[in-house]
């Protein structure tokens, strides 16, 4: 049975960064992931990573942009930490070998990004996330003696002792179906977001909210769950992402009438306003009949010099060609807002600690909250690294002063019976895939860019019904080797828990802030709603709602214009 000081669940950037930091602090570390680490969704972050590293820039400016981007829902103490530590982290990545773009002097070069008052986004062409992920994995291979890797292991439940402390997890080896208890002094969730609750989404198929639901079931508080970011530029049919880097490099948005419509919505920042602002503008154009027939507007990258596009936006040249049949260097590409990121997640402090002792969370699974109501582009890679690192360091520090917890062997039998029962279900209910499909399509129509009470109440009802249907949903695969079918059934449960919390938060927040726009409450209301909505599990009933204050250090809420 594996036993470690620190168990990390998820091996994207947050998880790998936590593992490296915990190992550097001398802890024994296990990192476990349901996919091979380089398959993680951090790959998809194309555009870059923000840091006020340039002498002309300042961390305060970065922090203010982030606070403003968050529509003042971000906790400013956490944002300050993130922006102060950003330059050091980018340099650390550079020293580890990330092939960051250079300027003519051979120093790190930047590009512009949305919602930022300076060009402070460091990047590797438009494969920044991929480059970072692969370089961190290089370091993980390098430190294989300190970090045990469990690749293709699927967590079924977190463990908790009688005192309420998290003591590790039960996981299933995907390759042979074996269940194992992973005993740990501290457990760090770094398993990413929940974008698959929506369809289409830019998120990978693995982003099923596992960690959010696992923590929630254990009693951890979730926060800001209603805040779902719609990215302004995604492909219509399949939701594939076109990086914000395109607009950062100078691409424009047009409606079907050829109008550069951002002039109306954000006359100063235009296409580089915050994502929530741009997505709403696009959706308004589409809803008011000025979009194309396929419900889209046009992103015109031909404004960017062609050689620059081929060097710096190579990946979206490929995406345009392969997934939309468009040569983006010669013609505009049709795009629309699409589900992209969840600002909410497991509530943590600035060391990644949750309200469950021994349980940490970092990256998209977590809500510190640095993104508040709306995340700025190129702040997510930063978030994963800074809070991954801090969680890893803190968890390792705690591990030094405590004994290995007692092992919960009996849980393996319980989990095994649960999995067997899913496999054995009669073919009387619906297919798992059908329920997943209905959930995603419904969420994308009722809990999207524009929301209202009526739609959200319908969403709540449908999620409730799907939760019921899920208990009888059947699968085909009866085997143990790579039984992805049974994992899909467990993931569906995670997704439904996440969806329920997203809808609950959206109904509760009766104002418009950041990504949450209520057509029935179209104004931001600081008097009543400058606060976080916390959700916690309440037996099998709807989540229990509580509130926590937003931490304000130096930036009082102001009107937000771009």
């Amino acid at each position: 049975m594996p036993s470690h000081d620190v168990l990390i669940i998820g091996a994207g950037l947050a998880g790998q960064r936590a593992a490296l930091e915990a190992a550097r602090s001398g802890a024994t570390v296990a990192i476990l992931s349901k996919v091979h680490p380089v398959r993680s969704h951090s790959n998809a972050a194309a555009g870059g990573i923000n840091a006020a590293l340039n002498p002309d820039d300042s961390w305060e400016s970065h922090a203010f942009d982030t606070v403003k981007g968050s529509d003042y829902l971000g906790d400013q103490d956490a944002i300050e930490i993130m922006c102060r530590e950003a330059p050091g982290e980018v340099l650390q990545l550079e020293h580890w070998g990330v092939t960051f773009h250079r300027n003519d002097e051979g120093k790190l070069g930047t590009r512009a990004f949305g919602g930022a008052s300076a060009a402070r986004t460091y990047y590797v062409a438009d494969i920044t996330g991929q480059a970072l992920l692969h370089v961190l994995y290089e370091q993980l291979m390098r430190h294989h003696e300190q970090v045990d890797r469990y690749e293709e292991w699927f967590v079924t439940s977190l463990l908790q002792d009688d005192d309420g402390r998290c003591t590790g997890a039960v996981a299933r080896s995907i390759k042979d179906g074996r269940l194992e208890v992973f005993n740990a002094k501290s457990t760090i969730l770094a398993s990413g977001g929940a974008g698959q609750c929506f369809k289409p989404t830019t998120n990978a198929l693995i982003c099923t909210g596992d960690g959010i639901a696992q923590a929630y079931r254990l009693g951890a508080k979730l926060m800001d769950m209603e805040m779902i970011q719609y990215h302004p530029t995604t492909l219509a049919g399949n939701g594939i992402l076109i990086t914000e880097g395109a607009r950062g490099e100078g691409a424009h948005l047009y409606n079907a009438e050829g109008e550069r419509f951002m002039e109306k919505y954000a006359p100063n920042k235009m296409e580089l306003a915050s994502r929530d602002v741009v997505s709403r503008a696009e959706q308004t154009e589409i809803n008011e009949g000025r979009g194309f027939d396929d419900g889209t507007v046009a992103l015109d990258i031909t404004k960017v010099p062609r050689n620059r596009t081929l060097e710096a936006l190579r990946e979206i040249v490929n995406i345009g060609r392969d997934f939309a049949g468009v040569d983006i260097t010669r013609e505009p590409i049709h795009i629309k807002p699409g589900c992209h990121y969840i600002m909410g997640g497991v509530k943590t402090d600035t060391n990644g600690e949750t309200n469950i002792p021994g349980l940490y969370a970092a990256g998209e699974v977590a809500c510190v909250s640095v993104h508040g109501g709306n995340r700025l582009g190129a702040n997510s890679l930063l978030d994963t690294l800074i809070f991954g690192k801090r969680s890893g360091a803190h968890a390792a520090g705690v591990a030094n002063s405590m004994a290995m917890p007692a092992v919960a062997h009996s849980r393996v039998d319980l989990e095994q019976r649960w999995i067997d029962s899913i496999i054995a279900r009669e073919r009387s209910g619906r297919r798992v895939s059908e329920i997943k499909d209905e959930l995603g399509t419904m969420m994308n129509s009722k809990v999207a860019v524009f929301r209202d009470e009526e739609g959200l109440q319908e969403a709540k009802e449908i999620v409730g019904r799907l939760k019921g249907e899920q208990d009888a949903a059947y699968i085909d695969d009866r085997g143990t080797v790579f039984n992805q079918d049974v994992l899909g059934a467990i993931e569906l449960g995670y997704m439904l828990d996440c969806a329920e919390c997203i809808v609950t938060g959206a109904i509760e927040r009766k104002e418009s802030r950041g990504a949450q726009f209520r057509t029935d409450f179209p104004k931001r209301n600081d008097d009543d709603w400058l606060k976080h909505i916390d959700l916690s599990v309440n037996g099998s009933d709807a989540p229990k709602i509580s509130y926590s204050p937003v931490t304000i250090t130096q930036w009082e809420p102001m009107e937000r214009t771009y």
Partner: protein
Amino acid sequence: MPEYTLRIRRYQPESGEAAYWEEFGIELDGHRSVLDGILQAKDRQDGSIGIRCSCRAAICGSCGVRINGKPGLACHQHLQEAESSARDGVITVEPMGNMPVVKDLITDMDAVHWKKIRRVTPWLLPEGEPPEREYIVPKESMVDVTQSMACIQCGACVSDCLSMEVDPLFIGPAALAKAYRFVGDPRDGQQYERLKDLAEDPHGIYDCTHCFNCIEACPKGVAPMSQIMRLRRIAGADHGIVDRNNGHRHEQAFVTLVKTGGLLHEAELLPRSYGGDSWFGKFHPKAGAELLDSLPVIAKMLQRRKATPKAILSAHKITDHRKLPRIFDTIEDRDKRVELNLYITQPDDEVPETQEEGETESHGEAASTPPERSPNS
């Protein structure tokens, strides 16, 4: 909605039965991917179909398979394209080659691919302590290694590597491309050691046979074979590494023969590779030993009429071979070697308007020079 048929290679390890083919009808737009098709079959007909997949956008590298016999990502090929290249209108999907199959379309990447990646010391080894700020390095060098950084470790190149089929120990295209990512990185302090290691390994850089399969297979334009050739050029020309496997000498002999005659003269090639790159090479004891060693092969060649004594002994020359040195001189006179790179492009005004999609992959400063090829080994 158009209909397609997928013929999927199934293998259920627990059934005790051999692998078999199974057909699934699907309904999807032709521009949706083969992966979308497989997922529809999985969702609607048989959830037990095994395939790794995640991003659907050719960045995570999970869904490497063979479609109609060609390796690639399932998410990266449209159904209509796949159907048009299918022999009988049925799109066949099977697991990648050169790796053991775990279940259906899932291969054991760790047993082969990742093991080879770990072989090349796949992390940066800078000299001394890092600077206070970033390393100052030429802009071009970072853009240059970004091409191998673009590798998503999908294994498509490994799948169809002919050398690996013959020599399973060959380090292989993906891992050697990864090696270039460090050799080409000016921040790395172990370039000579890395190159020496990869040249001296009998399964290293000289084990590639230039079949181009990896270049065709790569969905990201990494062109692994080109990276291997660059490793060879840097090892041989820049570091003067002459390996025990005679890889470098072989390459030199090859160039000399082509330069003088325009054609390969096989009977001269091996003596020169082993005995030294001149007409006298064949009198060197090492060349003699190699000749003795090769006698059975030579006998077999003669017997099977792959070669005749006359063809072996007479020099091979093309008619206008005297023009050849000019080509070589032009290339060798350049101050710097010109290397093709995906990310380095020429200024806008030089882009020919009629350029086709496929060519954008390899154009650049080097577009006017012949495609990068080293002599065969």
